[in-house]
């Protein structure tokens, strides 16, 4: 034993000098990406359905896009526990509003409410990036994007989440026509005026591109389309309008059609699903 300066396994007998500290981390990043584009009389809100933590896929189908009212859809991205809970509380506030005022909350009011709800937790934030899409009071398609503490802005399009850096510059180019000029004599480009078919193609291309290059994006995609009341649905439901592999369903109206005096019906929301690569 004299060979050893310290007898082997001596460390096992040594008393632990420093106590091991444990610290609970209340946040996590669940990956995925969301995206919304406004049209003249419609709005498209989309998200992928993969939910992951690190290199681990927790589920291939987790919802990130939520129908709030007949004219509002909310997409959440970031920490999904916070996202789910936030949506739950937004829906509760919307229900209280309807009971108090006998009408559903308008889109811009929902946007302002989301700001106050997010800022209300300024010092223990919901770790969530929100994008709100829908139809404004005047019938125009709208997109509102938020940061986790409630700073918000109305825009023509916005991408958020893991693949924001991949998708947003593509959208700048294709939606805002950045770095493009119309040919001399041609009409000027107007952002937020693209037809639905073009917008849908851009959404699909954005997500297939993001799926190709980002490990946290994939599995499936859900695209919500909110249409202004009385708008033709031919460009979505017409023969051969849907791309290969797409499935569409119309979501049943949530509110009682109290504002149906003009006989046009209300806003209509459609849900298009498409598979994405699972690798």
């Amino acid at each position, binding site marked *: 034993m004299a060979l050893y300066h310290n007898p082997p396994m001596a460390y096992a007998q040594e008393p632990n000098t420093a106590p091991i500290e444990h610290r609970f981390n209340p946040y996590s990043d669940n990956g995925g990406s969301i995206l919304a584009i406004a049209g003249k009389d419609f709005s498209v809100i989309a998200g992928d359905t993969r939910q992951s933590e690190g290199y681990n896929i927790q589920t291939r189908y987790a919802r990130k896009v939520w129908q709030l009212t007949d004219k509002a859809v909310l997409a959440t991205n970031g920490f999904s526990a916070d996202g789910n809970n936030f949506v739950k509380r937004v829906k509760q506030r919307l229900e209280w509003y309807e009971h108090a005022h006998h009408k559903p909350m308008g889109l811009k009011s929902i946007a302002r409410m989301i700001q106050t709800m997010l800022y209300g937790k300024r010092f223990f934030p919901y770790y969530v990036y929100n994008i709100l899409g829908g139809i404004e009071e005047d019938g125009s398609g709208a997109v509102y994007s938020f940061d986790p503490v409630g700073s918000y802005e109305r825009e023509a399009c916005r991408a958020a989440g893991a*693949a924001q*850096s*991949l*998708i*947003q*510059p*593509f959208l*700048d*180019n*294709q939606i805002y026509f*950045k*770095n*493009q000029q119309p040919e001399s004599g041609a009409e000027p480009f107007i952002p937020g005026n693209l037809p639905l078919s073009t917008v849908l193609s851009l959404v699909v*291309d*954005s997500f297939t*591109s*993001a799926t*190709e*290059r980002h490990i946290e994006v994939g599995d499936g995609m859900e695209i919500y389309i909110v249409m202004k009341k009385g708008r033709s649905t031919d460009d979505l439901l017409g023969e051969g309008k849907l791309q290969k592999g797409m499935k569409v369903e119309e979501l049943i109206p949530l509110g009682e059609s109290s504002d149906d005096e003009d006989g046009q019906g209300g806003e209509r929301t459609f849900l298009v699903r498409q598979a994405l690569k699972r690798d």
Partner: protein
Amino acid sequence: MELNGGSVVAMIGKDCVAIASDLRLGNQAVGIASNFDKVFPVNDKLYYGLPGLATDVYTLREHLRFRVNMYRMKEEREITPKTFTHLVSSTLYEKRFGPFFIEPVVAGLPTPTELDPHPKPFISTMDTIGCITTPKDFAVAGTAADKLYGVAEGLWEPDLEPEDLFETVSQTLLNAVDRDALSGWGAVVHIITQDKVITRTLRARMD
């Protein structure tokens, strides 16, 4: 990479290749120069871009110029894109434990030979220690790499003619660097074809 900023993209077209870079040289968030070219010719069919640490751009460029000149004199022929890629790669790996902070991109058209009368356009890229990838479509590197991937994946298509390839690579670069604070401040594009090289400086956002 984040010290000086800068980005490079290369794309394959139909019997042509394109390589483009921004022109910014910065010191972290502060812009220093808007004429810092990161793409250099080896010969009139082979170009390479060196985004990364600016001091290493000069060192590596001069080192490669020396090695290519020695190759030219010994072999009495021009270096091929593939051989050049391996020259760059081994140069980087020599400094395995104290690397050059550079992610090179190589783009070239191999000269037709008797054995291979119709060689394919060639692009390649490496990490800082010389691990090679040879994509079939496009290669990106630099501080706007993730943005470049997103836009290139959306805009690129196979068999683009030289002028269409120019538009694709230019739009990809401009829209990607406009979302990157460390890249931009002008851009330069080279389109390499069998009979000529077209070099254009692009008007870009200067903010």
